[in-house]
């Protein structure tokens, strides 16, 4: 009973069982140590979790319909991969520029910066072709436009927008379900891993020499927890009589959406006509 042990006087008799080393101050001063790679991984996980949870960076008034964003991305990727005609590439560039200027200034700069740095990486890989005589400027321009289209999509929409777009494009429910579960699991897994790293950090009081062993222990434990969580998730879905049908919030289609979708359709028709002739 708690009342038997609840007053301070009662502890005087029972604290005799406490070991001497616990009664005295530790007076521990660790040797010179560096932050381990294990603890540095926290930043990456936090960024990934933020991305999975992130809402769209575009304000509600300026945001297009999720389907418009997805269709626009697919059309841009399709045309840029398919065509080798300079003026078609420029036309796609103009459509993308029109999409970009509707975004807030900060986001616009972020997208351009990211696209530029990624293009630089691609260009480095592409350098040997310059010496082999197969270098093509159009390829790099297309690559830049593909990067802009992809990063614009990733920055303007959230994971939930993507799921809504899939649903409205009549993608089979089981595929959406798999994707949705995957994303949710990824988020829970990330959260769990982050908390585990925090817990390890709190108990890292010296030079924990075997980081590889520690990683394997953490990953093993995480795996066991995820298996259990997966089972619980399916049981919970069954218990709630989940039929595989998704409910989603209805988004209104604006005039801007129609404009962008018309431009996309026209671009595809133009490419097909040019290809036929």
């Amino acid at each position: 009973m708690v009342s038997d042990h609840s007053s301070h006087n009662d502890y005087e008799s029972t604290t005799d069982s406490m070991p001497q080393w616990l009664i005295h101050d530790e007076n521990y001063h660790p040797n010179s140590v560096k932050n381990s790679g294990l603890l540095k991984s926290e930043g990456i996980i936090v960024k990934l979790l933020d991305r999975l949870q992130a809402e769209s960076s575009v304000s509600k008034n300026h945001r297009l319909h999720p389907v418009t964003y997805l269709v626009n991305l697919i059309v841009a990727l399709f045309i840029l991969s398919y065509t080798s005609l300079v003026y078609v590439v420029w036309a796609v560039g103009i459509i993308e520029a029109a999409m970009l200027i509707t975004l807030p200034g900060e986001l616009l700069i972020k997208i351009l910066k990211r696209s530029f740095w990624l293009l630089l990486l691609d260009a480095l890989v592409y350098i040997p072709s310059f010496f082999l005589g197969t270098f093509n400027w159009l390829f790099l321009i297309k690559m830049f436009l593909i990067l802009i289209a992809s990063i614009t999509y990733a920055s303007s929409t959230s994971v939930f927008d993507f799921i809504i777009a899939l649903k409205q494009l009549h993608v089979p429910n089981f595929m959406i379900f798999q994707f949705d579960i995957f994303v949710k699991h990824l988020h829970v897994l990330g959260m769990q891993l982050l908390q585990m790293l925090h817990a390890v950090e709190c108990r890292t009081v010296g030079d924990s020499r075997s980081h590889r062993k520690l990683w394997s222990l953490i990953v093993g434990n995480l795996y066991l927890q995820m298996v259990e969580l997966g089972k619980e998730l399916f049981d919970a879905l069954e218990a709630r009589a989940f039929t595989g049908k998704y409910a989603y919030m209805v988004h209104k289609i604006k005039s801007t959406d129609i404009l962008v979708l018309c431009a996309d359709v026209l671009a595809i028709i133009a490419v097909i006509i040019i290809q036929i002739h």
Partner: protein
Amino acid sequence: MDITENTNDTEKLFSIHNLTFGYQDKNVLNEVNFTINRGEFVCFMGPNGGGKSTLLQMMLGFLKQQSGDIFYKGCNVTEWLNDPQLKREYHQQVGILFQNVDIQLFNSTVYDEIAFGPKQMDIPEEEIENRVNDCLNIFGLNHLKENVPYHLSGGEKREVALASVLALNPDVILLDEPLVGLTYGNRAKLLRVFGQLNHIGKTIIMITHYFDQVKDLATDYVIFGNHDAQKKTRAQVLEDPELLQIVSEY
């Protein structure tokens, strides 16, 4: 390395100065001030979302306050945590038992789990073994020494996690809702250990909603609510019917 040498008032362990924190547009804590002294048994009480766990996270450096400071032994916690060497010293002195103990247990046996901390402190193997056995003795868990922590019951996991914190011999023990999900008997067992630890000089900071079970143990309370946190002594809480009513409802 000792950055606390210049601190005159060694009794003050944690000092919270004008601490403000919020999530996006939601303000959680606004200009909070209080001090926790050595040897106190402080219970953080308040409504859900009142900022109790948030403050604990900030004390460990996992969340960054918008303004204000947290001092530990007279030095800013940021200063403790920015230097890898001081950070380890801080973590040895300030132990934490998380609410979700599953994240805290990752070793393959209970023995390894408890020995994880001391092994990093260059303590002789024989003394490590003694420490582990002592920690197991405190909770009466000797029979579980070779067991896999993952397969233990909820109550046993919490005790093993606490034993692994005690093995570091911390000065302060932070407890994030350690009594949640336990039977009355297990709660009583844990509270008995907390009381003993406090009696031998450990400072205990515990988040809890079980006022009835901690009212005779706690020396002080920090009461959260309305973006604020006020520290009150046990006498102040017990003698003020209004305050007593508030904490009883948490």
